């Protein structure tokens, strides 16, 4: 009985907290996230309450984690791919309007020179003009936003000397944040080190959401196709807002030569890189595994441990080690090559050398995994097959081609495809080793000759000054389709039954 009360109590508290989060998100107009958590909470309650869904209780956390951190981001990314979401179009329309309406400028018509006094009660500012003086009440000077300080023509200026210009310079940050409120409702702020001036709103809103610049009189119309306020001359106001862009991002990838050129080049290199890595690591791994399986070889434990070392060292450390060793000017590899052969390859500035380097490093990183896999699979081959072939006088090459390879290829195929898919998305290697360099000439987005599709996308989204999330998400969707298709084939090939 107490257990039941406890159980329902805990459940109620958790649901209450979740509902609070959902309502808070909804109130902030974050509908997507509110919806996401609503679905998660509702399914959690359903699974915990229903007897029929007993089995789902076991899988709920894993499926929810997957949904929250894999499937939701995936759908979010696909969605962004159809918008113009980018650094200049981050906000919603309402927020853009608020932002523009909150902009101000300082009117040149009402400028006041001022004196600043330091009194016992705090600072006092005196604005001087031909009509007379405006004197503030005492206030504290502090950085950051402070409520406006009132100034009035009736208050009396403090006696004594005003602060010297030198001291005013010292206080310029706090003075810059200072807002003064005149009795007629005008607000004033610092215009220069020696003067305060009236602030006026830069834009005024009229019907149909149009904005008029109060200084120039130009009218700006909201353009829901481009996501910007535009004047009749095509002048744009920044920031813009996020609008639906349809298939524009996908069209750009295909038709814009400054994007499609680098995209195709990077796509081909990504394929070459993945296939190359799989082939090299497999050949090396299979060879070593065969040697380690050989009865005649002594000291297997030693060899095995040594050969596994590249896999045991954390990849992010060994990649950075290689980055240093391959350094063109003072890297150890170039020092050795120069003393032996008198050459100093440009590992980082020559595209083909950089690609060679990446393949070398990735083979170094990846062959132990293939070796371990092959060792496991080789053990399952019956030994008498080799006995029989030896009786017939077959050599090691014959054994490999006619016995070993055909027998391990089938269980190995899905693992090879998984390895291909992993390397297709091997972001860490590129990010830490070359960062994509050297760059492709003539590309309008950041694109490098050693970039893989993932690192290319990452750079478009996070490194480019434009932060073009929409374009990045469109490319990401393409990548997912490729990799998803691969894993489907993989599932079919490995004939997994569930």
């Amino acid at each position, binding site marked *: 009985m107490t257990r039941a009360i406890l159980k329902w109590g805990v459940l109620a508290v958790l649901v209450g907290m979740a509902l609070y989060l959902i309502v808070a998100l909804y109130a902030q107009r974050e509908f997507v996230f509110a919806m996401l958590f609503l679905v998660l909470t509702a399914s959690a309650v359903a699974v915990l309450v229903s007897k029929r869904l007993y*089995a789902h209780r076991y899988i709920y956390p894993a499926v929810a984690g997957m949904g929250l951190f894999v499937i939701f981001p*995936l759908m979010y*990314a696909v969605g962004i791919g159809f918008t113009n979401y980018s650094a200049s179009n981050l906000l919603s329309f309402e927020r853009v309007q608020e932002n523009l309406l909150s902009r101000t400028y300082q009117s040149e018509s009402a400028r006041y020179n001022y004196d600043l006094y330091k009194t016992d009660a705090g600072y006092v500012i005196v604005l001087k003009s031909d009509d007379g003086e405006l004197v503030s009440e005492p206030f504290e000077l502090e950085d950051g936003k402070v409520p406006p300080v009132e100034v009035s023509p009736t208050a009396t200026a403090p006696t004594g000397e005003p602060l010297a210009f030198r001291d005013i310079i010292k206080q310029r940050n706090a003075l810059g944040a200072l807002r003064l409120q005149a009795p007629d409702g005008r607000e004033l702020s610092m215009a220069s080190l020696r003067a305060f001036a009236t602030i006026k709103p830069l834009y005024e809103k009229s019907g149909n959401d149009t904005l008029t610049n109060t200084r120039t009189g130009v009218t700006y119309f909201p353009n829901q196709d481009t996501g910007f306020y535009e004047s009749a001359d095509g002048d744009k106001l920044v920031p813009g807002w996020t609008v639906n862009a349809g298939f524009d991002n996908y069209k750009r990838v295909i038709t814009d030569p400054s994007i499609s050129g680098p995209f195709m080049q990077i796509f081909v290199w990504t394929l070459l890189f993945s296939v190359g890595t799989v082939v090299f690591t497999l050949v090396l791994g299979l060879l070593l595994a065969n040697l380690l399986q050989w009865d005649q070889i002594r000291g297997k434990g030693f*060899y095995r441990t040594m050969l596994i070392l590249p896999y045991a*060292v954390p990849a992010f450390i060994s990649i950075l080690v290689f980055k240093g060793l391959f350094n063109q000017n*003072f890297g150890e590899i170039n020092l050795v090559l120069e003393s032996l052969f008198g050459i100093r390859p440009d590992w980082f500035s020559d595209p083909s050398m950089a690609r060679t380097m990446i393949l070398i490093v990735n083979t170094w990183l990846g062959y132990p995994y293939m070796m371990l896999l092959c060792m496991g699979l080789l053990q399952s081959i019956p030994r008498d097959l080799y006995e029989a072939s030896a009786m017939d006088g077959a050599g090691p090459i014959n054994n490999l081609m006619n016995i070993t390879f055909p027998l391990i290829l089938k269980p190995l195929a899905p693992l090879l495809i998984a390895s291909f898919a992993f390397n297709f998305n091997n972001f860490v290697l590129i990010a830490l080793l070359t960062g994509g360099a050297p760059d492709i000439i003539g590309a309008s987005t950041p694109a490098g000759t050693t970039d893989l599709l993932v690192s290319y996308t990452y750079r478009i989204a996070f490194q480019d000054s434009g932060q073009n999330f929409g374009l990045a998400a469109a490319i990401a969707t393409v990548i997912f389709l490729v*990799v998803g298709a691969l894993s489907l084939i993989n599932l079919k090939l490995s004939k997994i039954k569930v």
Partner: protein
Amino acid sequence: MAMVEPRSTKYRVLASHLGMLCFIALILFPLLMVISISFRSGNFATGSLLPEVPSLEHWSLALGIPYTDDAGNVVQPPFPVLLWLWNSIKIAVISSLLILALSTTAAYAFARMRFAGKGFVLKSMLIFQMFPPVLSLVALYALFNEIGKHISWLGLNTHGAVIVASLGGMALHIWTIKGYFDSIDRSLEEAAIVDGATTWQAFRYILLPLSVPILMVVFILAFIMTIMEYPMASILLVDTDKLTLAVGAQQYLYEQNYLWGDFAAAAVLSGLPITLVFLYCQRWIVGGLTAGGVKG
């Protein structure tokens, strides 16, 4: 051994030994070089594999002790390496425990229970897992930004966010454990259930104790995967003292501030424990790698 042996075997064995030793020398060159560099003085020093004048300056800096050089200048440690290592280990231990607990229970349901949509969920998990996490960073950033406004320890720049985000990657582990559960005869549990045990008891007291080896494997694999996780942590963590090792280590090798010697010491110091753990556990790992993939 009744193997038929051709005459050339002796030479082939010799050649194999030689070949493997040369290969190992080549493979180990970068690792030995880093150890050597960590003992050289200065950040641009060159020299032989055994430094003529060993210097401990980089090691002292890596351990967080300010170093006084010959001229009397005090050099402060550039980065808190040990703190990064601790952050990494903390995050990795907590996430792998969570991953282990959650993927074991899920794998149990997939292996033993019958319910609607089982095959579909299992397969789609495997396919969605292929979606590269790099591309979901925009969404994850927005997600944690929103959560952080209401739950401070789960927001951006917290370890909580990195730990929770690592829970998205359980599909592979579930498959591995499920493969192992499938290989255990279910008659034991059925007998227990006939004797009146609940499903949970059959799982907890019968199946779990039998599966300790695979749980070890999954824990180690999850631990290594979270320690090496780079893209997500690089977006979620900002402050220098919050970084994990994987994100922090690259700061040594910026073009403008190239601390090659300091990096070498820090790399050896932080990489060594992880490497040793891996080597110690390699037997189980090898089993686990093939178990999940091949048996299915």
